[in-house]
């Protein structure tokens, strides 16, 4: 009788383990930069498309966008957490700003680029998660947010978008500690 109960209990544990809700199993680290390069190529296409439509794509309101400038000396002096925070906050802001464009009336081609950019930002977040990069932490109330810039056109916004991906995001991924473990 007790043996039967033990077996049933083990079976229940196994079933619960499979169907455990919430956190998924840790992702395999994506260290290959070709994954990010694919998103960068799509960001190039979006930037080129937005650059072509200057007048039709202008919007009255200003956008908030992250800073993309990279001073190598300054960057190399930052630790991984600081770099991660800068990248994650920038991605967060970009995501919000580009998502706000979805509501505006744009052409089908531009809309497809907007949708692709939002999707790619989400994928980049997954890649960072796979590398155990800390997630974005909104600043506490009263704390200073990361420095941002204002952009006045969609074309300028997508320039910021491509420069951010090529620069800070790529540098962070290239130097992820998980990908350099075991390498002296």
């Amino acid at each position, binding site marked *: 009788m007790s043996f039967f109960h033990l077996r049933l209990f083990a079976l229940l544990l196994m079933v619960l383990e499979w169907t455990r809700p919430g956190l998924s199993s840790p992702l395999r680290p994506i260290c290959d*930069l*070709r994954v990010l*390069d694919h998103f*960068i*190529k799509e960001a*190039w296409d979006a930037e080129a498309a937005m650059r072509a439509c200057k007048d039709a794509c202008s919007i009255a309101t200003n956008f908030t966008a992250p*800073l*993309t*400038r*990279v*001073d*190598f*000396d300054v960057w190399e002096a930052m630790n991984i957490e600081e770099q991660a925070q800068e990248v994650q906050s920038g991605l967060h802001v970009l995501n919000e700003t580009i998502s706000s464009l979805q509501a505006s009336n744009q052409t089908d081609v531009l809309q497809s680029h907007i949708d692709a950019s939002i999707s790619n930002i989400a994928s980049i977040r997954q890649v960072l998660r796979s590398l155990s990069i800390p997630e974005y932490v909104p600043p506490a109330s009263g704390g200073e947010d990361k420095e941002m*810039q204002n952009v006045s056109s969609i074309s300028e916004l997508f320039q910021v978008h491509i*420069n*951010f991906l*090529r*620069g*800070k995001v*790529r*540098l962070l991924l*290239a130097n992820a500690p998980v990908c350099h473990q075991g390498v002296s």
Partner: protein
Amino acid sequence: NYKSKIRRKKIFVLTCALCTLAQLLQDETEHIKCFVEGKDLTCFWEERNNLHHQYTFTYSYENKNKMACAVSSLLASNKTIFFCKLPKTPFFTTLDVQVLRDGRMLYTRSLNAENFLFLDPPRNLTVMSSGKEGQLNVSWLPPPLKYMDDSMIYEVRYAVEGSNMGKVEVVKVSTMLVLLGLQSDTRYKVWVRVKPDGVAYKGYWSAWTEPVFGVTPPSDVDPLIVLLVLFIGLILCLLSLTVILSHHKFLLKKLWPDIPTPEHKFPGLFTVYKGDFKEWMSQNNGSMWGRSVHVYTEELPSLLEVLSEVSRTSHDTSQREEEEEKESESSDSGLTDRWRDPPHAHWLMEQLRALQENPESRCQSSLLQSHDTYVTLNQGDNEQQVDDVFEETLPLQTLFTTTGTSSLSTSHSDLGSLQQSSGSGRLSSQSSFEYPNHTWAPKGPGYAYMAVADSGVSMDYRPMSSSRIAELGRHRMYTNDYKNEICPHKWPLSGQYIKSGSESCTGPVW
């Protein structure tokens, strides 16, 4: 002095870079041309006829405070190059640069520094033989730049030493390449250059490396194998030659068989009359009679048409009388035993004798009488047909009555023995030759048709003796050749004709 040395060295390096870039930047439409070497951005512009103007170079990032840069100059052949270097340029941000001449805006430009990378050429280029024919292994190291190891593409150029015709191979990311399809045992020159791949960073092609030489391995055909192959090939050739020579006749016959032609049977038909048979017939009509009789095998009996029927009652009686006389005379002779009493025997003898003496006169001779059931074409008076008996029927009858003998080569004295040994009776009861009397004359010496109703008689179709066959072989027997000779002494003996060289009609060769 130290600082001046450093400065001169920098200018020298810069000059080299400018010289390299000058060609690349020919198509650059911007007045201000910029490139990044390492982490430093250098911008330059060209001016002709330097009339001692004051040039000022200013720059600013993200529309912030403008900063000035010290302008240097280089004197070229017919122009002056002004340049300014910005150390540790920030990437992934917009840089605005302006050139002022005497305080006035001359040129302006906005650019991102990471798009104008001018990399150093690859290092440690090595070319080695892989051991395989027509292949060379090329490897190198990327220029020492952080964060860009996997963002570079390479171009490998190779050419035969001394030749200007080179080929180019593009290599992405990888720092080695195997050159294929090269000539064996040849010395090659190899160069490599590098450029950002254009995804994360953009820029210009670097300068070519110094050429490195490599020699391809010689063709790896083992001389021993070549010798063996040649030797085996030689042996095979000799063998085939021997076989061909030993059977050359057979092979020639198989490959190039003789086409049989009937030309010799028709003298002049193809040469003189060009195949016109009618013409040839009319010309050669007379000589046809002199043509020899041909012999063919017994498989092809000839079709004989019965022309008329002739009774031989008058001949029979005369024969009987002769035979009776002979019997009485030679009663003691051994021949009597051999002689039976065929009613036609003596008459046959007479006919044969007469035929041999005077062949032509018997053309109109009569036929044997038919006794059995067969079609008679001429129902006329048999008496009149007495003279129409053909001598040729007589030997045929003789043949039909003889079963034991085969050859015609019997002597005159043996005729009786032929008849005697058969004992099968007269032919006249079983076959006949009929010639319609009226049809003979108009046809003239045209055709002779004889129909033989073979109702059981044992016709002797035994082939002739080997000696005869050998003789015939020399004269080329044709089985399909039926000679319609009007001459009565055509002997369709067992379907065989004897060819002889005489012009006149000859009887059977006895």
